[in-house]
């Protein structure tokens, strides 16, 4: 076998396995060798616990990217869920369930508005969701008057801070949702339609797929996922903060892209995104432990995202040419 063929086979193998998982393992080994603290079981569990927040938000973002769109309102939805549940729970047990339901309903409404703006008003996803994000931040300011109050119900803390059978509960929630969404996207009609709409919306429409309904459902799901991620993060910290969602605006896209989902739509997987979220969290954790400046941390993250896109582009073009 010639060298180019071997390279092609290697790339195909990586693509089949999900290159991000190899990257996750490689980074873990390298970071552990540099900083042995990374090899501790407690630190591995810590990374999985923290990755859950980004991981769930990124699952929603994956769906948005799969249909050829993007959801930049996830940051606003995370903040909204944090502000709403803490202000409604106010540290009492009996308010927990209504607060969670209201928060999820509000998120679904935000997703419905995003989907409607994109499908009915023909606003591009980037502009529509960025606009919604800005509105949500403004609404949080108006709702709280800039002074958020409240705290979580005592029983709610278990989701973000508790452990079950040695595993963080947040991780169990995330992986359960992840596996369920992977099944939905791969094994159901809705999932297949999602890929079809992302690959070619015009062809999907000709095939009789209700494109608008699929898009609206996707943005509703994306918002609900962002809300669930926000709820877990709120459970982890216990108090409200107006800036809590900001960190997800771009890292959610980064996790999805690193996980192998194409920005152009129709290509990618939820399982890849789970790996992407672990990778981004692992990278953050590693750069927190080793003595690099925040500037270097940003450069590293940016370089990794650019490199991922490049590798997947390379894998994609090799696959087409073969």
């Amino acid at each position, binding site marked *: 076998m010639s060298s180019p063929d071997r390279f092609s086979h290697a790339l195909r193998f990586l693509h089949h396995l999900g290159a991000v998982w190899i990257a996750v393992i490689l980074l873990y080994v390298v970071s552990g060798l540099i900083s042995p603290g990374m090899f501790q079981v407690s630190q591995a569990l*810590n990374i999985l616990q923290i990755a859950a927040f980004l991981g769930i938000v990124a699952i929603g973002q994956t769906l948005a990217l799969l249909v050829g769109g993007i959801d930049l309102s996830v940051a606003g939805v995370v903040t909204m869920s944090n502000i709403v549940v803490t202000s409604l729970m106010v540290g009492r047990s009996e308010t927990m369930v209504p607060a969670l339901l209201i928060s999820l309903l509000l998120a679904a409404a935000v997703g419905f508005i995003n989907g409607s703006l994109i499908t009915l008003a023909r606003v591009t996803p980037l502009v529509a969701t960025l606009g919604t994000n800005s509105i949500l931040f403004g609404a949080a300011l108006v709702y709280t008057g800039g002074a958020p109050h409240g705290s979580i119900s005592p029983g709610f803390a278990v989701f973000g801070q508790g452990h079950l059978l040695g595993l963080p509960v947040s991780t169990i929630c995330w992986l359960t949702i992840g596996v369920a969404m992977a099944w939905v996207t791969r094994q159901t009609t809705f999932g297949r339609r999602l890929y079809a709409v992302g690959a070619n919306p015009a062809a999907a429409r000709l095939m009789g797929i209700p494109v608008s309904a699929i898009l609206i459902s996707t943005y509703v799901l994306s918002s609900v996922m962002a809300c669930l991620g926000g709820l877990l993060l709120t459970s982890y910290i216990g108090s409200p903060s107006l800036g809590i969602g900001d960190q997800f605006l771009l890292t959610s896209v980064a996790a999805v892209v690193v996980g192998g989902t194409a920005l152009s739509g129709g290509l990618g997987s939820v399982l890849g995104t789970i790996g992407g979220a672990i990778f981004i969290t692992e990278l953050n954790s590693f750069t927190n432990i080793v003595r690099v400046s925040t500037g270097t941390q940003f450069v590293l993250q940016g370089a990794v995202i650019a490199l991922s896109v490049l590798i997947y582009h390379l894998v994609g073009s090799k696959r087409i040419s073969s």
Partner: protein
Amino acid sequence: MAIKKNVYVVTRRQAIRLSAGALGFAAFSRVFPAYGADAISSAKITAAGETVSGSKYKKKGPYRIGFSNGFSGNTWRTEMLHSMKQEASQHQDLADLIIVDGQGDISKQVNDVENLISQNVDAILCIANSSSAVAPVLRDVTKQGVVTIPFNLPVEGEAWTAYIGTDPEKKGFTLGKWLRQASGDSGKIVALGGLPGNSYTASAWAGAQKAFEGGQIQVLAFRDAYWEEDRAKVVMADLIAAYPQIDGVWCDGSQDAAGAMKALLAAKRPLVPVTGDDYNGLLKLYQEQSGNYPKFKIGLLSEPTWEGVVALRTTLKLLNGEDVPKRQIIEPRLITSENYKDYIRPGLPDGVFVDTDLSDDELKTLFKS
């Protein structure tokens, strides 16, 4: 240039509220020299720099004053704005207080200041998003005879009328010195700052490092934690994994400190001496946990939310033709395990910054709690 200094202290809870507006203002002026710094709580305020002559800015009221707020997305700014608006309502010679929000955007803030000028304001107050970006526009406005008062965060150069704020380097030094003592001058510490690249944290951390010089303190790591509890908890969890021994935590804000202590609790590690500011969440955490962890101590320096009130009073003094100091440097009192009960607001939300001129009832209304 000669430097005049005027320092005085007013006991906390005897806060001066100029409720009688102009009358109170005049009374206040009689008590302290015309160029004296203002005061409102237990903080010491040092007047430094040249004296700015009010005669140059004297105008007949009523006045229109603009305030360019860099952004408004946290509770400190909310309390500051509320105090400032309350203060404004008590001055009959103040016709309009026009507040514009820069939304954290450097260029928007420059544009905001230009818009205020076009509205013919007599003075512009400003909390800068960037110490350098807003400097040229303030210089131009000052040249036109408009009073310009940056406060809270410094603006580059001196091409503005007067400045009010704390000295972050000095605060960082004081906190560093306290932590050095609290951890027995030989501990291993980690440090958490605010937003990446912000000048406040940079200065405060520079001050802390000076305080550590010559001692046995070992700094294991410095990380940015965005002054957010959740981010600080995540960063601290990583540092806990990397360093088996952490004897103290230096923070320039108590959201970071609270997040760091919560990470120690989650990792079942003992709580350690920590620094920060006057964030109620940390004071409540201290009250709750100090009995369980004998080494848990706090050393905190506030960033008073009444800085805007002092800025507004200074502006009105100038427009009334009174002299003021070029710089009024606020030096807050150190809050420690010994005196924290004077500051804690147990019935109020974590997000409250307690060095405020607002009463508990006012804060309850503001925080809807």
